[in-house]
């Protein structure tokens, strides 16, 4: 359980996961924020107003999967590094996953890194497709990796050799 070991379980993940139909339509954000902490930068980061909080900043963010275009602007804005964008339409067998990255070294496009699951275990190879490091991201890089589709809900970090 998340509260005992920091690892989100399948059941816990299910509460924030976009629908299968939505995944078939292209990239979409997954907001893995499961605690009502006082925090709201994701709401104002979204150009499509797809992220809302009902009852103030300690509410959990709710994603409107129809409004979300998977642009990924919320990814570097989340102080908890809890948002990824997943594109299950990337290729037949592989998905594209964009995640926040704040370590050294920053990977290069084309480099193959390790995809780590929520426990830090390397579960697959991941090819770096894109690295965004805009000044307004303030040193949180957004790294897009190509991973096998069946690892798409597991991989949440990378290890750069």
């Amino acid at each position, binding site marked *: 359980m998340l*509260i005992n070991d920091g690892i989100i379980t399948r059941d816990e993940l299910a509460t924030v996961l976009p629908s299968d139909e939505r995944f078939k339509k292209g990239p979409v954000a997954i907001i893995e924020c499961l605690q009502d902490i006082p925090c*709201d930068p994701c709401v104002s980061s979204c150009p499509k107003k797809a992220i809302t909080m009902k009852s103030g*900043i300690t509410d959990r963010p709710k994603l409107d999967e129809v409004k979300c275009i998977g642009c990924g602007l919320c990814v570097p804005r989340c102080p908890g590094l809890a948002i990824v964008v997943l594109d299950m339409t990337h290729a037949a067998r592989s998905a594209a996953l964009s995640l926040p990255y704040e370590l050294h070294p920053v990977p290069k496009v084309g480099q193959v890194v390790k995809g780590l699951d929520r426990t*830090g275990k390397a579960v697959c190879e991941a090819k770096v497709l894109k690295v965004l490091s805009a000044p307004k991201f303030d040193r949180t890089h957004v790294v897009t990796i190509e991973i096998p589709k069946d690892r798409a809900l597991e991989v949440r970090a990378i290890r750069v050799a």
Partner: protein
Amino acid sequence: MSRKTEILVVGGGPAGLSAAIVAAQLGSKVLLVDDNPHLGGQLIKQTHRFFGSSARDAGIRGFMIAEELFKEAAGLKKNLTILLNTSVVGFYGDTEAGLLSPERYEKVTFERVIVCTGAVENSLNFENNDLPGVYGAGAVQTLMNVHGIRPGNKILMVGSGNIGLIVSYQLMQAGVEVVGLVEAMQTIGGYLVHASKIRRMGVPIYTGHTIVSALGKDGVTGARLCRLDEKFQVVPNTEFDVKCDCICLAVGLSPLIELFQQADCKMVHVGELGGLVPLHDVNMRTTNPHVYVAGDASGIEEATTAILGGRVAGARATESVHGESAEAGKVVSDAVAELRTLRSGSTGERIRWGREKIEKEIAAC
């Protein structure tokens, strides 16, 4: 030599800086004193993005928030004097304090004082806890983020509050291996997003565990851990060793309160707020009408609420010197509304309980 000011602010962390800025903006003559060589308190060590409302500082890294406050303070030179490397060593009567710096000892007379002394880290009793290599989390952050020095190569973190979680992450960013994080409670104390962040980088989180002893002769070479049950009793035969050259303690903070005691402020013990705190009203005024409080000294919380508490204290202290003003009232009502929002929700529950106790006590006064 002696100085004179309207408002003396003790401590230049987020609370004190904010109190001084607001008081100076509202027209008070302010003297801000800090015993460090630089302002900012703990903010300058915070390399992570802050939580909170994007209307204020959420999403901004702590040291950048400090930079913003420094800029604001620098624009207020006419009203705001800053003394660094200077300690307030005591009060004489209600309106005089002694200031000690490496150059001199001097006295300052004031009309109001806002004490923002912050907090001191708690330690933990275990065998060999005096071995070189056992650090407090504050020291680790200072070494790493102020001086650019790694405290060790393999570190064990004790405490899963936000400080333990965040400092673990910062250590990994600095290239230090975190071999594990130990927590006596059965659940993680800090924000779960912080916990997930270090867990997916491979750090085991040992909830329901404690440290039995530090291993090593001349310095830390490891740590012995064991399981605890839900009543914090050691579970027999569950000991195991981990290798590390550093043990970092992040087991809570206690308000730094000596000056309030010396000023005869009524103190009250509130566990939820970290222990003994000076009793104070919504205006951050203590039971000594000359003395205000803000920041961790008024109850352990975090930097954003410290900033807001400081703004309230700065505005109300100014009003008590210069009379009521709509401008000051607006600063206070905005800050109070923001505080209420930040403390709502389940993660703010303990703080709300603590605050309620303070309100009850002050009402009975």
